[in-house]
């Protein structure tokens, strides 16, 4: 049975460009309108309206009991889709037909009031998510038990640790028993044990016939939980089908080895009015004439960016991520005072360190060691190839890193066990 049927849904946002700023205060709106009355011309001349389609002609059907993963890079329209489905925002065109009660967990602990106790917040949050009072009462003990907060039930949640807060939030949502559950990145928080509990709870929910929509950057979780997936890109639905199939398409889309991204002028470069990316390169030290970036190859990562700030203390924080979105390491430069101009930084990644596979580099420029100025996500995506010698096994080498650590093995004594 089809529980969600979306037909050509589109969502448009209008972005106003007007000398770099929009009318955020009433004064600007009033003074501008008055100016325009007197000068006799209309506003439209000065403002460039730009349509931004966060969703464009998205159509799909979801059957009851499906666990659907929604994947795609940032800005692909995943969150907008979920917002439309959970009725937080209306689509500009198109329609969705939903059979059953929808509960969205766009963020756990939504509507918690810090001054209220855990007990009071369970009722408040449950009601906000659409539970009836007797329904909450029925599940109360299970919620408390799942969250593990028995001792702190009458403590205001403002005194909870962040872990307790998230656990309580998820526990309430997990006991909602809606027919359709929409989950967005809840697993980004909480410890490993709790994440396992959450995934288990979601699996149970789907076994009992509930439909789940799950957005995550963590492809491993999508693979583990979802039987179907949707791959979105730039507001459009590229593919929907079996998870393994869709993940393969997704990886082939994003997996393009680029060893450099270079921008010739600040106007076209990504960034903002403070920072713009000039170039990011990987410079390998190839070990043989094959020119393969493989596990034996060490390489340099070199970043250049335009700094438009005068006298700012800047440093770079670089993340090396696996393609499934897990961070393998994060390194930072020291923070130094810089003037306007071009700034460069480089680091050496040793050989015999990364395992074969696809990786992406993201980095941000940070001011005063605390304020991120811009985050260049997936600035480069590259692949490290495998290399093996003297081995008869050709399966996929597990793990993200593949260090060459001395691991001597010797015979300690001879014995013929007679």
């Amino acid at each position, binding site marked *: 049975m089809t529980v969600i049927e979306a037909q050509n849904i589109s969502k448009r946002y209008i972005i106003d460009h007007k000398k770099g700023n929009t009318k955020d205060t*009433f004064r600007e709106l009033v003074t501008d309108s008055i100016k325009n009355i007197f000068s006799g011309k209309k506003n439209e001349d000065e403002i460039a309206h730009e349509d931004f389609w966060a969703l464009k002609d998205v159509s799909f059907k979801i059957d009851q009991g499906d666990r659907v993963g929604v994947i795609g890079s940032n800005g692909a329209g995943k969150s907008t889709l979920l917002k439309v489905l959970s009725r937080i925002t209306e689509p500009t065109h198109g329609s969705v037909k939903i059979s059953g009660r929808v509960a969205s967990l766009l963020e756990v602990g*939504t509507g918690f009031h810090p*001054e*209220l106790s855990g007990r009071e917040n369970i009722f*408040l949050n449950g*009601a*906000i*998510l659409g539970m009836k009072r007797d329904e909450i009462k029925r599940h109360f003990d299970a919620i408390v038990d799942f969250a593990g907060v028995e001792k702190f039930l009458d403590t205001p949640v403002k005194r909870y640790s962040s872990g307790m807060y998230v656990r309580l939030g998820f526990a309430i949502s997990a006991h909602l028993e809606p027919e359709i559950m929409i989950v967005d990145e809840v697993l980004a928080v909480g410890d490993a044990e709790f994440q396992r509990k959450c995934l288990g709870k979601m699996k149970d929910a789907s076994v009992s016939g509930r439909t789940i929509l799950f957005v995550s950057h963590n492809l491993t979780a999508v693979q583990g939980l979802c039987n179907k997936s949707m791959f979105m890109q730039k507001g459009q639905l590229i593919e929907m089908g079996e998870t393994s199939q869709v993940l393969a398409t997704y990886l082939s889309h994003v997996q393009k080895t680029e060893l450099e991204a270079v921008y010739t002028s600040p106007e076209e470069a990504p960034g903002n009015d403070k920072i713009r990316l000039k170039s990011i390169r990987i410079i390998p030290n190839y070990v043989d004439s094959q020119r393969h970036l493989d596990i034996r190859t060490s390489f340099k990562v070199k970043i250049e960016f335009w700094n438009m700030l005068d006298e700012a203390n800047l440093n770079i924080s670089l993340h090396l991520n696996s393609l499934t979105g897990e961070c393998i390491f994060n390194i930072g430069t020291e923070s130094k005072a810089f003037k306007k101009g071009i700034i460069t930084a480089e680091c050496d990644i040793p050989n015999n360190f990364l395992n074969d596979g696809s990786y992406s580099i993201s980095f941000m420029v940070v001011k005063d060691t605390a304020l991120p100025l811009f985050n260049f996500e997936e600035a480069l995506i590259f692949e490290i190839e495998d290399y093996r010698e003297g081995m008869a096994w050709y399966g996929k080498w597990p793990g993200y890193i593949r260090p060459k650590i001395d691991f001597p093995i010797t015979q300690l004594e001879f014995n013929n066990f007679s």
Partner: protein
Amino acid sequence: MQETIIEAGRSERYYWRDLWKFKELLYILAKRDVTVRYKQTFVGVAWAVVRPVMTVLAFVFAFHKVAKIEDKSNIDFGLIVFSGVIFWNFFASSFQQVSNSITGNANLVSKVYFPRLLMPLSAAAVPLLDFFVGFAILLPFLLFKGVIPNWHLVLVPLFLLLGYLAALSLGVIFAALNVQFRDFQQLVPLIVQYGFFVCPVAYSVATIQGLSWFKYYYWINPLAGIIEGFRWSILPDYPYFDWSSFIPSLIFIVITTIIAVYFFRKKENSFVDYI
């Protein structure tokens, strides 16, 4: 099984039905505000007593003793101020709470769906509670001053309802505007402060009888009739009440309610994009 259809402009048709379905949330949001109100205070609800009493004392001093405003009736000046102040406090803080109800619940607006009108509707719970506490002190005070309320008392809820509707409709317009322009957040306290002096809170309407535009006063200030009506319902001998002052009040409430509902409904789907 429940069927939902989402499309542009669709929610219009089922809005009022949805609102009814979420009535339990209305109660819970109101209860939240009431519970939170006096948390982590030492004297708790006693603040609801202290505040109006102190205000009344200050105004009796300022208007009666310093400014020498005399009331021509034989009613105790303290009672005129007291009744005005508790009613005005109810109106003013309802108006303020309602105006801030959407921006104050920003995290809910951007994360979960429910009819947004629930937020302003639930916002008057705290002022209502404060009003009842104030009223509970006013009654013994009346008896102490030798005033015995008569059947007019049954009309108190009517005036309270009118005050609530006026505060709600005005507040809803401001709440919707406030989402996009935070200027209104600055404006609301100013209006409240101004209104205190413009409305017959610390004086009765009769005090300004000498002014040339007095006959239009109820039309200029539609709240004045409601406040005087409230006084009349608790002070049986109160001579300055006039049923005809209801006409401007009712016209005002009907018009602002229509504008408020229309404007709020038009804006509410874009709240999440601006908040």
